[in-house]
C-alpha cells in the first residue's frame, strides 16, 4: 500500500514538473498525460479505501474537479485564468463540504474566498497588468523545489490521515458531537463558548491585517514627476 501510494505521488510530482509553464509544448503534454494517469490510479485507490464516503460518485467528481483546478492554477500561463481556476477549486471544495453537511462552512467559504479574496486577486492582477506577460508567468521559477515540497507535503498529509494503513488499522473516527454538526447553529455555540479567545484573537488579527494592508498600499508620491515615474 505505501509503496503504491508513494509511487503515485512521485508520478504526480514528475508530471507536474513537466507540465509547469516554461517548458516545451510537447513536454507539457507528456506531463499532463502522466498527471492524468497518476490521478486515475489515485482516484481508484481512494474510492476503494475511503470508508463512509457514501455518495462516491459525487465525492469522486468534486475531488477530481478540485485537483484538476488546483493543477491549472499553477500551470496556466495567464494570471486571470489562474484566478478563475481558483474559483472553480473553491466550488469543488464547497461541494465536498456540503457532502459532509458542513453547510455553514461551505457558504462562508464561497462568501469569503470567491466573493472577497478572489476579487482582490483579480484586482491585483489587473493592477499589475502589463503589455507583455510577466517573466514569472511565462516560466515558473523553482519548479523542482516547488514540486518536491508539494510532494513531501502530500506524503505527510497522507501519513497523517492514515491513508497508508488499511481501514482496520486506522484510529476510529470520533462520533459526531451533535446531530447536525455543520449547521450554523451547531457552529455558533462552541464558537461563543469554547473558542471565545480564538475569536477575539481573530478580531485583533483582522485589525492588524487592515492596518498592514493600508501600510503596504500607501506609497507616498512626493512630487508629480516621481509619482508618474514609479508606476
Amino acid at each position, binding site marked *: 500500500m505505501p509503496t503504491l501510494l508513494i509511487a503515485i505521488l512521485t508520478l504526480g510530482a514528475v508530471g507536474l514538473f513537466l507540465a509547469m509553464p516554461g517548458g516545451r509544448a510537447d513536454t507539457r503534454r507528456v506531463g499532463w498525460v502522466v498527471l492524468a494517469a497518476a490521478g486515475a490510479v489515485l482516484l481508484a485507490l481512494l474510492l476503494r479505501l475511503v470508508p463512509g464516503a457514501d455518495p462516491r460518485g459525487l465525492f469522486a467528481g468534486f475531488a477530481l474537479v478540485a485537483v484538476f483546478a488546483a493543477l491549472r492554477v499553477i500551470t496556466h500561463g495567464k494570471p*486571470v*485564468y489562474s484566478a*478563475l481556476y481558483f*474559483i472553480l477549486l473553491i466550488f469543488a471544495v464547497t461541494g465536498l463540504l456540503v457532502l459532509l453537511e458542513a*453547510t*455553514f462552512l*461551505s*457558504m*462562508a467559504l*464561497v*462568501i469569503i474566498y*470567491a*466573493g*472577497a479574496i478572489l*476579487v482582490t486577486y*483579480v*484586482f491585483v492582477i*489587473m493592477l499589475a497588468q502589463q503589455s507583455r506577460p510577466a517573466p514569472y508567468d511565462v516560466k515558473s521559477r523553482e519548479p523542482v523545489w516547488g514540486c518536491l515540497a508539494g510532494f513531501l507535503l502530500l506524503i505527510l498529509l497522507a501519513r497523517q490521515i492514515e491513508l497508508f494503513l488499511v481501514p482496520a488499522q486506522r484510529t476510529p473516527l470520533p462520533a459526531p458531537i451533535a446531530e*447536525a454538526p455543520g*449547521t*450554523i447553529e451547531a457552529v455558533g455555540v462552541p464558537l461563543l463558548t469554547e473558542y471565545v479567545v480564538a475569536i477575539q484573537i481573530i478580531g485583533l488579527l483582522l485589525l492588524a491585517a487592515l492596518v498592514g494592508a493600508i501600510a503596504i498600499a500607501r506609497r507616498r508620491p512626493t512630487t*508629480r514627476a516621481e509619482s508618474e515615474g514609479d508606476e
Partner: protein
Amino acid sequence: MTDPTIKRIETVLRKPAVIFGAGAAILLLVTALLALAFPLYKPLLSSQFSFSMIVLAVMLVLILSATALCILFERKIAGFTQDRYGPNRVGFWGLLQPVADGLKFLLKEDIIPRHVDKPLFLLAPALALAASLLGFAIIPWAGQVRWPWMPPDAPPLSTQVANLNVGFLYLLAVGSLSVYGVVLAGYASNNKYAFYGGMRAAAQMISYELPLGLGLLVVLLVSGTLQLDQIVQQQAATGVWNIFLHPIAFFLVLVSALAEANRAPFDLPEAEQELVGGYHTEYSAMKFAMFFLGEYAHMITSSALIVALFFGGWHFWGLPGPENVTWWAMLIKLAVYLTKVALFIALFMLVRWTLPRFRFDQLMRVAWQSLVPIGVALLAATAALTYLGWQRNVWASLAANLLLLAVLLRSAARSKRPVTARQEDLPEIDVRPTT
C-alpha cells in the same frame, strides 16, 4: 413580404381584442394540456424532491418571461416619467414588444471582436445570467401545500426549490458571485470603456455587500433563523411584518440591492454618458441580451428576498395563513407573493427614472461613510433590544429606529460635506489626462 402585408399584420396585432383573445386562447390551451397530462405528473407532485424540481422548472419559465415583460414595463414607465408613450407599435399597448425584442436579439449578428479574450468573452454573459438565476433556489414562493390526494397527516410539501439550513446566507454567497460576470466581461472585452465599467462594477458591488450583510444581520437577530420560509411564517403568525420593526434595515437592504443589481442611481458601470455601454460595450445580440436578462433577474431575486424578509412573503392580513395548506391557498399565496414582487420591481423602475446617477466618489461615500456606520449602529441597537428580549416588540424597535433616525438626521445636517457635495466644495484634484 411586401410593405402593405406587414402593415396589415401590424394593424391587426394592435387591436386589443386580438392580443387578449390570443393570450386567453394560449392560457386555455396550456391549462387544458396540463389538465390532460395530469395523471402523468401526479406522482411527481407528491414527493418533495420531484415537486421541488417542478417548482424549479415552472419558476425558471415564469421568471424568464417576467424579465421580458419587465423590459416592456421599464420602457413604459420611462415613457410615463418623460411624458411620452413608450413602446406602442408592436401589438396593443406594445404588449408584443418583448417578443419582437427577443426575435431581434436572436436574429442579429453576434460580433466577437478580434482583440477579445475569447473563452472569457463567452463565459462572462453566461456567468452573469446564471449567478442571478441561482438565487431563486431558496425563495419560499407559496408556503406549504398538501395535495388533496395525500393522507391528511402527511407532512405538507414546501414550495421552495431548496430549503437550505443556511438560508439567506446562500443568497449572500450567490450574490457575491455576480461580480465575476461583470468583471470578466470588462476584462475579456479588451476595451477601455468595458474595462473601466467592469472595475467600477466590482468596486461598487463589493462595497455595497457590507451594508447588505449588516441589514440582513438585523433581520437575523429579530427572527433567530436564517431560513426564509420560517422568517415568512413568523411574520404571518404574528401579523407583524419586519418592515414595521426595522424600517432602517429595510432601507439599507433596499439601497444595497439596487447597487448590487447595478440599477440607477447606482448604474455607474454602464453610465452611457461616460463609458458608452460600460462592461457590455463590445457585446451584441444574444450575449448582450443575457446581461440584460441577468440584470432583470437579479432585480427580481432582490425584490423576492426583500419581500420575504420585510414584507411577510406570501402573507396578507385576512388571507389564508400558514396553517392552511390546501392547494387553492397555495395559489392565493403565490399570487400575493408575486404581486408584492411586482410592486417592488415597479418601485425599482420608478427610482431609476426619477433619481440622477451618483458620481463615483459619492457612490463610495454613500456605502462606506453612510450605510456602513448606519448598519453598525442599527446592529448594536438591535443587539441591545435582543438582549432585553424585546426584539419582536414593535414599539421598542420603532423607538430605537426613530432615535437612530434622529441622530442620523442631526449628524447629516451638521455634516460639512453631504453626499451631494458639489464639485467646487470638494478638495481640488489634479485632473491629468488618462493615457
